[in-house]
Structures are given as structure tokens and as C-alpha cells.
């Protein structure tokens, strides 16, 4: 059994930054990540791509990842890419599979830097081949230099679709149209938060720049799209949409990319029993953390977008801050020194976070994201429809775990990552309760599938007790 001071889960901006700071303070650090190379989703394949032509079209924010990855590589942290964490027990014992070998890693402290995922936004037909998330398409561009063959339909809200379309156009791709799902009135609602956001003026201007580029390229934009549906038998053939004021259209489509914001990856903290709380403005759960990023479980930290969506710069800052506290708790750094070093990081973090209320309000998801039509498959793995969930409400006022037991929603390999919030919202509406009160699935191991053979070999190698 390997033993380390600090186990960092995830090698994106937060995990890499945490590793650098932890190493500077003499901690013995192991970083595991399920991706094959450092960078997380935002800087996917940055080491090999940043310096290429493809890197140039991805932009400066992407290129910035190269320096972070280099610092991480030089930090002296042990880095094990391609590792799947499937169970973590108090104490801590992390069960990890790499190259089909399972093993146990013992650690005194853990930083969960597992990032975010795109918010599941079910609509009829979203399981058809040809429907992907915008994030997925961007990963294909970064990792494989791959773009939709034909003019692509993009439906969603938030900065990512704008950024991706800009990159796609630069790469020579074509956009059939952008269905902007941001509801009417969001800008007015967000304006009061603008003064607070001015510290991050640069990012705001960038966003405006993307919009201008789309306009110049003549990308058709349909505003206030409220409902979408992908139509086809074995793959997407058509896209149907309807705007808030009732305008409907059916267009032919081969690829439809969707995006309704991102939510923290909460499965790892939930598996460790960390407290989470409902965030109304981001419409998701976020871990309850102190000012160092330490969770309700002693020695368990959450850094990066997993701590609440705030972007790559904030993620790096949170990674450094969490590592400082880990060094204090493991006796390698004085409290005073940690405070001193954290102070400038915290003020930078404050500036990054100042932009959030504006963005979160501007891009708050349309209500239809949480109220899919009855025929929509909400659990992709077990193919459970919204109707089946709603039918159950007649039997008392069931919670998500009862619904899981009765319908199998959330029982498949994705472990509720694609249906958890939908179930919470459907129950909240049907039972007239706030979503935060309805709760979430109990998270069960394994966090990622593991074979029985891998599990069995664990027992043979060493007593795990």
C-alpha cells in the first residue's frame, strides 16, 4: 500500500496548483487523474497542442495552461494519469485503478480537485447520436483537432457556446445557427451585479468580443429559445425549437451541441460524507467549505470548480490556498506563514469571484431545463422518463432515493451524474418543495466502474483491513 501525505484527485488548474504549493512546503504528494495528460478539461492536451496551429486558434486563455502544466511537471509531485478513483474511505484509503490494476493509496489529507461537469439539460431526443454537449465538441477540438462536418446547430446559454463558436469559425467550421436559450430579462436582472464585476472587466470585454465576432461572421442567432427537441430514429435528423413567444421551427440537423452552464462535480465529496448546501443562484449543490477550502470532513479539501463554479484562475488560487492549509495541518508550515502567503491569493480570488453574481444571474438556466416534457428520458443509463418520475409523486411525497429504488433512475454506470438534478427538480416542482430540501441521491461506490477481477486482486495483494 503506498502512503503519501497528500493525495490530490484531479490534475486540472486546481489540482496542479495545489501540487506545486504542497511540494514547495515539503509535502509528499500524489496526483491522480483520469485523463491521460495534465490540464483538466479547460487545458485538455495543452502540453502537446498549445504550441501548434490548433493551439493558436484556441486562444490565450488556453495557452496559459502550458506554463501551469510545466510548473506542475517540475514540482516533484508524483503524477499518475489514467487513474480512476472508485472509492475513498475515511482514514484515508483511496481505491484506484490504473492500467487495469487496482490498488489502495493511504493518505493523511486529500484535496478533491475534480472540477465540474456540464449541467444535465434533458430534452426529448437528447440521447440520440449527434447530440453532444458544447464542452464535448470543444474537447474534440482540443484533443483531436476535430470539428462538426456540416454546419452545426448550437443551443444553449453562457460563455462557453460563444467561445466555442468563435474557435470553430477560426478553425474553418460553420455554424448553422445559435439558439440562445437565455431567457428574456436576464440582463436587466444581472445589471445590479455589474459594478461588482468591473474588477474582472477583461473577461467581460472578451465575452463582448466573441459576440461581435459571431455577428461579423453572420451566424444566425435566435433569441429566447425556450424548448428544443432532437428528432430522428437512430441519429439526429431534425431539430425542433420554440421560442418564449411561441415561434416554432423545424430545421434539418446532423449535429446539435447543447450547453446550459456547468455544475460542480459533487460525487467525490458526497462519497466522503462532506456536507453540501443548495446554491439557489447556481441551481446546484456546492460543498460547505471554510476559507481554506476544507470541507466538513477533517483533512478533506475541495478546490477548483468542484468548490463552486468560478473558472480556471479561481481554481488555481483555490488550489494554492487549500495546499497551504494542508501543509499547516500536516505540520510543515506555521499558521502565520500560511496566513501571510494566503492573503494575496485571497484578494486575487476575491476579484475573480466578483464576476460570478453577474454571470450567474445573466446565465441562470431557463426553467424548462428543470421541467422536461413527460416523454423526455431523464435517466440516460436506465432510460427512465420524466413521466415515470412524476407518476410516483402520487405515492406519498417520495425523495430521490425512493424514486431511484422504484424506477432505477440513477442506478446505471453514470451514478446519477446525468439525472440527479433533474430528479431533484421534478420532485421539487411536483411536491411544491424547494430543491434544496428534496435532496440528492445517496452516492454509492464505485465512483467509476471497476471489474470484479480488479477488486479481487486487491484482496490477494495485501490485506486491506
Amino acid at each position, binding site marked *: 500500500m503506498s502512503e503519501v501525505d497528500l493525495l490530490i484527485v484531479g490534475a486540472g488548474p486546481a489540482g496542479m496548483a495545489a501540487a506545486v504549493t504542497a511540494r514547495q512546503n515539503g509535502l509528499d504528494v500524489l496526483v491522480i487523474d483520469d485523463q491521460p495528460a495534465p490540464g483538466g478539461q479547460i487545458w485538455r492536451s495543452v502540453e502537446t497542442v498549445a504550441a501548434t496551429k490548433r493551439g493558436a486558434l484556441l486562444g490565450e486563455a488556453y495557452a496559459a495552461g502550458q506554463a501551469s502544466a510545466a510548473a506542475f511537471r517540475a514540482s516533484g509531485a508524483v503524477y499518475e494519469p489514467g487513474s480512476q478513483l472508485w472509492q475513498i474511505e475515511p482514514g484515508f484509503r483511496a481505491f484506484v485503478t490504473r492500467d487495469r490494476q487496482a490498488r489502495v493509496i493511504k493518505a493523511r489529507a486529500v484535496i478533491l480537485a475534480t472540477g465540474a461537469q456540464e449541467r444535465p439539460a434533458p430534452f426529448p431526443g437528447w440521447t440520440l447520436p449527434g447530440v453532444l454537449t458544447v464542452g464535448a465538441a470543444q474537447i474534440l477540438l482540443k484533443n483531436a483537432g476535430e470539428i462538426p462536418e456540416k454546419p452545426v446547430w448550437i443551443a444553449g446559454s453562457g460563455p462557453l457556446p460563444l467561445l466555442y463558436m468563435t474557435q470553430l469559425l477560426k478553425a474553418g467550421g460553420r455554424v448553422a445557427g445559435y439558439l440562445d436559450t437565455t431567457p428574456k430579462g436576464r440582463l436587466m436582472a444581472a445589471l445590479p451585479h455589474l459594478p461588482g464585476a468591473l474588477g474582472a472587466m477583461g473577461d467581460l470585454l472578451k465575452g463582448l468580443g466573441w459576440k461581435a465576432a459571431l455577428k461579423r461572421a453572420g451566424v444566425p442567432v435566435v433569441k429566447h429559445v425556450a424548448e428544443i427537441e432532437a428528432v430522428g430514429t437512430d441519429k439526429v435528423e431534425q431539430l425542433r425549437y420554440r421560442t418564449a413567444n411561441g415561434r416554432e421551427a423545424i430545421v434539418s440537423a446532423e449535429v446539435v451541441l447543447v450547453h446550459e452552464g456547468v455544475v460542480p462535480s459533487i460525487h467525490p465529496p458526497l462519497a466522503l460524507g462532506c456536507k453540501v448546501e443548495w446554491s439557489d443562484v447556481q441551481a446546484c449543490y456546492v460543498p460547505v467549505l471554510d476559507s481554506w477550502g476544507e470541507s466538513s470532513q477533517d483533512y478533506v479539501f475541495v478546490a477548483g470548480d468542484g468548490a463552486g463554479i468560478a473558472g480556471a484562475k479561481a481554481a488555481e488560487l483555490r488550489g494554492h490556498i487549500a495546499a497551504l492549509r494542508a501543509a499547516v495541518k500536516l505540520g510543515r508550515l506555521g499558521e502565520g506563514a500560511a496566513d501571510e502567503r494566503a492573503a494575496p491569493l485571497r484578494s486575487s480570488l476575491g476579484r475573480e469571484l466578483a464576476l460570478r453574481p453577474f454571470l450567474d444571474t445573466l446565465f441562470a438556466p431557463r426553467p424548462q431545463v428543470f421541467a422536461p416534457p413527460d416523454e423526455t428520458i431523464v435517466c440516460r443509463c436506465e432510460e427512465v422518463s420524466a413521466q415515470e418520475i412524476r407518476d410516483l409523486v402520487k405515492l406519498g411525497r417520495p425523495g430521490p*432515493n425512493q424514486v431511484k429504488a422504484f424506477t432505477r433512475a440513477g442506478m446505471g*454506470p453514470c451514478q446519477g451524474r446525468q439525472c440527479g438534478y433533474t430528479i431533484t427538480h421534478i420532485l421539487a416542482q411536483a411536491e411544491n418543495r424547494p430543491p434544496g430540501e428534496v435532496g440528492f441521491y445517496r452516492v*454509492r461506490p464505485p465512483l467509476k466502474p471497476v471489474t470484479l477481477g480488479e477488486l479481487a486482486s486487491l484482496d490477494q495483494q495485501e490485506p*486491506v483491513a
Partner: protein
Amino acid sequence: MQPDVVVIGGGTVGAAIAYGLAARRQRVLLLDGDDGDFRAARANFGLVWLQGKGMNMPAYQQLTRSSVALWPDFVAELTETTGIGLTYEQNGGLAFCLGEDEFEKRKLQLQRLHNQLAGEDADWEMLDRAALSKLLPKVQWGPEVAGASFGRLDGHVNPLKLLGALHAGLVRRGGAIRSGATVREIRRDGEGLRVSFGNEQVTAPKLVIAAGLGSQALARQVGLDVPVRPQRGQILVTERLAPFLPLPASGLRQTGEGTVMIGATQEEAGYDVSTTGEAAAKLSRKTIRLVPALADVALVRQWAGLRIMTPDSYPIYAQSPSHPGAFVALCHSGVTLAAVHAAGLAEAIAAGSLPASLDPFHQRRFDVPKAA
């Protein structure tokens, strides 16, 4: 609704009794606890099982036998009432033996159990390796598999569908379910019993406490001491596979969906539903010794449930002497016994007294002085 009976506990035991009561023209209110409560009913393995049960307690073997006999009609009626398929099968079940020693031990154990009930024909047999391979030709057994015991009356069901159908069936029969209704207090109120939950109260002439591990505190309020403790069982379930194992076995069964359930541990771990990597490793190892090809199959979920254990492991059925009309029903075999709970037990509760055949299950068997 002014209920005739309040049932506390929406698990398989409480729901089966409530469903059975509703069939007997009782107005039933089922109070179910919180979504996050310990819920053995959601952690169940799904066997409807007779073989090996009832050592030193012939009444339990008898009760199990009568429930197993009632199951086919019980399922037919429940499915007809609700339209929910339970994937129930009663084609016999197996208990595998690794090594000749285990095989001989198993044989002796079943022989002893058989001798407890005079005059019954044997409904089980021992299958050696060759006979087992002949019975289940699609499975490649591990080299250590010596054979299995085969119980002709054993079967299996989807325990979650069963629970869901009992809830739906109760509602269909005019009963009501309240979720998130954790009971705080039970008091005598004139001729009736008053139950307080949340900010609400309800009074009924009859009350059934079937709240699993929560029953102890509730039963105390009606003057019954029911000793229960949690015993943790961990279960693994794999991804879906094409059908290969047509019969359920103790510790290994393929479900109607195609997943393979593997279980279960028996651990004294208190009120702790954590799962452990250690248990996952142990269960996996045992499984691969039985069927080596399962080694490359993915585990999709692991969970833990708490069995409701009494000191002798057998059920408790009792009516309170101090609070007539208040009954307690608890056990760790709620699935197998569901048919008898919905039939004979519900009938007795509706009539107001438990039959003599259930006397061996009264909690007073634990009241005797501890020192022998």
C-alpha cells in the same frame, strides 16, 4: 381519512401488512419515514427462500414454508392490482459449496433441518458438480466448486419492484401513504391510539409498528421491549449481462434486468451504512472462485443495508398487553414473508388478535431472565 389502522413503516414488512389490511376493507394510513433513513427494504437481495431456514425454530421453518406457498397467488394478485411486473420466479434455488467439506457440511445441515419437521417430503437435494453442470450448462464453474444444494421451492423477485408494487397496491385499494412522516410519539387516546408525526396527529383504533430498527423506541411507548440490533450486509451489483444464470443462488443471482447481485456480508458494525473496499474485495474473490468469467465484469454499485436482527434472529410478532390494538411486526426476511404478512398476519391484525401459531414469535421469549 379517519383510518382504522395506522401502519408505521413503509418498508417491505409494513407495506405488505398495510396492503393486506387494505384488502380486508380496513382504511389504512401508512406512515413512511425520511428518504435518507436506514432502509433495509431498499438494500434487499431479493430471494424468496426456504432452504436452510429455521434451525432450532421449527415454527419459523413452518411460517416460511407457508409464505413460500402463498407467493404465486400473492404475486398474481399484486400484479393484477397494480400492473407492476415483479420478475418473480420460483424454479428452485442453489447454495454453492466450495470444496468437498462444505458440500458435506451443507448436506448434514439440511438433513438436520429436515428432521425437525416430521413427515414432510424432502423438497431439496444435493447436486454434485456433474449434476450442477448438467442443470446449468451455460456456466463454467470454478475448479473448487464441489456442487450445490438445490431447494425446489426457492425463488427470487425484484425486491424494489415488490416494494413499489405494495405501495401502489395499497393506494389502489384506498389506503394512503405519507412520506417523510417520522413518528415521534404514540399515546393512548380514549379508545384509540394517537400517533404524532411532524406537526400532525392521527388517532386510530389499531396501530402496527413495522419500523425496522426504529421499532424498538416506538414499541417501548406501547409497553413492549423488542430487542433489535443492526447487522450490516453489503451487496455488489454488476453491469447488465445477457442471461447466463437462470436460477438464483444464495449470494449470487442474475436479475431480470441482467445485472448480477453478489452478497451479502454479515457484519456487526452498528448503525453504519458505509461500504468498504475490504468487503468488495472479499465478495468479488468469492464470486470469481464460483464463476471465473465474472472477473472482467464491471461492478456498477455497492451498497450496504442494515438487517433487523433479534437476539435469536427470528421475527417478532406481538400485540401490546398494555395498549390493546398496538401490534409490532419485525424481521429480516421481509421479502420471503411478504405473502404471509399480507395474508394471515394482516387477517389476524384486522381481527384484533394474533393466532396461537404465532406465539413462538412473541417478544416475551426475550423477557426471560438472562442468566440460565
